[in-house]
């Protein structure tokens, strides 16, 4: 019991991090796209739990609403609307697969060896400063809003133009002339 109270958050972190990674691998390897999409949902939800563990409740809820909800529904719609059985399989990158695997393994090794035993220092966002606005206690969503609409206002607005361009681009490339 003592062990659990002392290491509970760390255990939860490793459990859900492993789930997020494992289901992300399944997304790529599953042959049935419906299973792939559902694995993606598991991955999204596990990441949401990681956000909760870091006291970022607002981001966690947004992750579930936007990714788990909206984006997943879109994916499932697309999978249902296009008839996947009529697409024939093309092996596109078969030639470069060994090289790709080699580079991937090397990169993973580089990161693992670099980060083993490295202390990352104290977390930049402690629970206190995620719920306080100018020293006053507030909610997590309020703290996010203060950052988003004040300090990070410019990137936030540029992101809206960015999304407009993405929408216009999808229409241009998808439209029949």
């Amino acid at each position, binding site marked *: 019991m003592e062990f659990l109270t002392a290491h509970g958050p760390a255990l939860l972190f490793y459990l859900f991090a492993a789930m997020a990674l494992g289901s992300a691998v399944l997304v790529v390897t599953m042959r049935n796209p419906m299973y792939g999409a559902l694995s993606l949902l598991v991955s999204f939800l596990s990441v949401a739990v990681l956000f909760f563990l870091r006291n970022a409740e607002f981001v966690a809820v947004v992750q579930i609403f936007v990714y788990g909800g909206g984006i997943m529904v879109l994916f499932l719609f697309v999978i249902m609307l296009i008839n996947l059985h009529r697409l024939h399989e093309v092996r596109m990158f078969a030639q470069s697969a060994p090289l790709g695997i080699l580079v991937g393994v090397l990169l993973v090794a580089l990161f693992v060896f*670099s980060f083993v035993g490295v202390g*990352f220092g104290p977390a930049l966002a402690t629970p206190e400063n995620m719920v306080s606005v100018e020293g006053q206690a507030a909610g997590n969503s309020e703290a996010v809003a203060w950052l988003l609409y004040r*300090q990070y206002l410019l990137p936030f607005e540029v992101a809206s133009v*960015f999304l407009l*361009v993405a929408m216009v681009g999808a229409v*241009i490339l998808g439209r029949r002339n």
Partner: protein
Amino acid sequence: MTAIPIRDFLLLAPEIFLAVAGMAMLVAGSYGRDNGGNGHRGCSVCAVAALAMTGGLVFWLQGGREVPEVILSGMFVLDGYAFFWKILLLIAATLTIFLSERFVAEGGYRPGEYYALILFATTGMLLMVSGFNLLSIWISLELMALSSYILAGYFKHQLKSTEAALKYFVLGALSSGILLYGVSLLYGATGTLELAGLSDALSLAVAAGDGQVLVALGWLLLAMGLFFKVAVVPFHVWTPDVYVGAPTPITSFLAIASKAASFAVLVRIFYQGLAFLTPDWQWLTAALATITMIWGNLAALTQKNVKRMLAYSSIAHAGYVLIGVLTATEDGQWAVLFYLAAYTFITAGAFGTVVLLERRAYAGETYEDYAGLARRAPFLAASMMIFLLALTGIPPTGGFVGKIYLFAAAVEAGWVWVAVVGVLTSAISLYYYMGLIVQMYLKDAEDTTPEPLYAPGLLATVGLCAVITVLLGLLPGPLIELAKGSLLPLP
């Protein structure tokens, strides 16, 4: 964290205006139902007018500053450096629109969205070169990149254009991910994204011991992302296919505007954000500059397609510009500004010539299609010769002056071997540029050789670029003075 004063938004007026102009163009473009003719002409005139007015606003609100001013809670900086790039980028976007004349109309594609996307991409570039926080730089870079992906695939009935857009998108997204990952590691190590404080925070993190690994991986990944955007070997693989497949005016846009904006950001991040790591990035840049110059020029030797040759040439030229970047001296820095400004006119002119000879389905792009051009279109052939000489670096052109100052800055700063590689590879490049000049002046045209398009506006643009290229070779003084007045503080 105080509220943002209204004045900051007023100072941002040029960027806001350009974004709004893009949106207005989208709305106006959706009213016209015909795909060619007058609607097209109207859209291009409006786009040029929007760019000119943005330029006026930049002059009025953001110019003439001795001391940099940081606004919008540290996201955006107004200094002479950003001012120089903004004017250059607006000129580059205007040249692109001039080159697009008739080109989009002939393909039967709708003009409104095409010009709107160019305006959005330019907005992203203006925000980029003024970005003073890694987050605002990154999102502006993405705005530019996303618009460029769509523009590269604008000829969606052509398989090559779609292929170009797809390759550009997939590799661009990958490189953005790498860049962002590097940024996140740097943030993890330092707790700041602002360029002003990043360098000091990096030195603290490295001194603390464990931070070393985070900082090293972080800046390497960040640099990789930036090198991808400026198309430096070994991050260049996307360039030839994208340059060949994209509509030629867009190829020109990528080669001049996109590249200049990315270089502007690269220099700002290296000089201001990563100042603490100067010797490290100098060596990395020197190594990449060397392989880029060698590989770019060698690969260009074997090309049969003029657009592909120009793509490899643009890779090689990114290598030459890196020479100026790595010196970390004032001479090197203004040489970079001068070279990229000259390169803008040279490359726009060269691609303009390609546009004039091009036919549907990418005909008219091989070396043979240029045979006997001197007899069929003497003016066009002479202009193209000027651009090719400038790309090689032969006087009296802007390309020659630019290269001389780049190499001189490198020698002065003690990077003699990089300058030597630059001179030697320039000699190699003479071979493939001369190949095209020989085709134009010494070979005879076959019956199947295409006639150049008759388009007075385009021809005038190409002529203007040729005149400026020669003028920059004969009277480089004013532009050099301008560049010298627009420097960043040295790292």
